[in-house]
């Protein structure tokens, strides 16, 4: 009997029966997935785009004030001379404006007040020290680090860049840092890279201003990957 019953209950009948019960649900789920995908696709892809070198920390807003310390920066030896604050300032502005000119809403605003806690300065970081370093403070102005590993998660509340006054700096395009670390380094190239750390980008092997090693072809402008990553974080 069972065999007879099944033979009369064809696949088409099963389909007809199931479509009345399930198809509205299937349609609804499918439409939800399509709609969600269409809405989220640009967001998801841009997030994935940034994740390979974005550390996950961010400023709470989209505008960050910073202060150039004319005292320390006057010690930088640029084009063979110290006491060249105007020249140094121009180089920093080139790098800062390059970031500001990207489509992202994020901006770095230079202000003159010493009350600003985000400093750009120069100091003697040693004969064999780094050419420059960025420091980020997370959640509190006294929890500050120079590396991302084991850095607490949360908001960036303070940042600083320091350039090594022991190094030789230049306003012209320097591609070869003669005999390992001898300089001179193009100041706006290095500043561009350090500002990338300010938005919590790590070093990368990509074609990016955040490339791990100094290379004039990587440091001379914000690369599309950098710009897209910034937009994905700050809009």
């Amino acid at each position: 009997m069972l065999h007879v019953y099944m033979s009369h209950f064809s696949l088409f009948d099963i389909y007809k029966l199931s479509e009345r019960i399930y198809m509205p649900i299937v349609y609804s789920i499918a439409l939800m997935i399509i709609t969600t995908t269409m809405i989220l696709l640009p967001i998801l892809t841009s997030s994935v785009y940034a994740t390979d070198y974005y550390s996950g920390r961010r400023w709470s807003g989209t505008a960050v004030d910073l202060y150039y310390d004319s005292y320390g920066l006057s010690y930088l030896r640029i084009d063979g001379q110290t006491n060249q604050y105007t020249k140094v300032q121009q180089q920093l502005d080139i790098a800062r404006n390059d970031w500001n000119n990207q489509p992202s809403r994020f901006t770095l605003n230079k202000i003159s007040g010493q009350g600003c806690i985000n400093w750009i300065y120069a100091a003697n970081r040693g004969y064999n020290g780094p050419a420059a370093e960025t420091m980020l403070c997370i959640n509190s102005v006294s929890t500050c680090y120079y590396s991302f590993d084991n850095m607490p998660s949360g908001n960036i509340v303070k940042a600083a860049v320091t350039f090594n006054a022991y190094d030789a700096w230049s306003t012209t395009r320097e591609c070869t840092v003669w005999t390992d670390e001898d300089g001179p380094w193009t100041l706006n190239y290095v500043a561009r890279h350090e500002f990338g750390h300010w938005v919590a980008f790590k070093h990368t092997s990509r074609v990016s201003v955040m490339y791990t090693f100094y290379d004039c072809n990587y440091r001379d402008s914000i690369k599309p990957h950098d710009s897209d990553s910034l937009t994905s974080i700050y809009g």
Partner: protein
Amino acid sequence: MGDLMKRQPLLLVLVPAVVIGAVIMVTYLALYATHSTHDEVRSNVESYTPGYMGEGNFSIDSMSRFARYIVIGTIADTTSRSYLLFDKVEEYHNGIVVNIDSELTGTYNNDKRIYFVGPSTNWVKSGDKVLVFLADKEPDSVWGNNYYIIGGLYGLFKVINDKVYGEILPEGLPLSDAIKIIEEARANRIKDISLNAKYIVIGRISDIVREDPYSDTHIKVDVEKELTGNYNEERITLLIDEKVLKHWGEGRVGERYLFFVRDDTKRGDDDNNSDGSSNTNYSVGKSGVYYINDDGIARGREFPEGISIDELKAKIIKFRRGE
């Protein structure tokens, strides 16, 4: 059956849409999960860096040549310190004590512990095995009177399962291979600069001229010996950052130095000075200055511990000959 046929186009759209949507979601979740925590990276040490926020072109080779000490050991203690620079900028550093297993320059003769400082980081902790390239003490620097890590964090590596990981070695390198690179680089100290230099001059400073307080110092040197054989004048004028000169010597007239003159020197506007000597101001970078003391010991970037000038000359000549 006719109904099913009628609905096929709709199904053809919906089924792939569901599949594509699911694939996108799964892919996103997979990617999100893989980048999220550093703990995961640490447990799987396929790729591991401090995530250092600095600029430098340091390599294992260059750090091996510049290092005062190269230490392999275990971190015994870490401390944090901060101080106000220029009385207004707060700096944050870590102090690190390492129990030394081995010291690869062979010049560290103190006890089996060494203290050094570096930029503040949570990357290392007590018990970690490390390979660290250390620079000599520079009391005038932000590091104070302490040994410091070369290149900020570029010179600090963790040793995990006999592989070395650091900012410039994210994929790791077997410790044995790192040691081979270090030994080879140490054996070839001053090779690159000897080959790249335009001239290599030994002589005494005869005059120091500052065009203004802020420009590089013009150092006039009476040439005692020139090792490339390409410079025939009795005197040479060098453009040098005075603080580099004073890092090794005192920067005074009468002091004896060996200088590696850079080959990117630009000539002055006039061909000759009024006394007929060349007006070219040759540039010397911070790797090119070796102060020679009264005992004939030369100290400079690649020989911070000192080397006899005769031995240094012999090395330079050997490298120039391609031996």
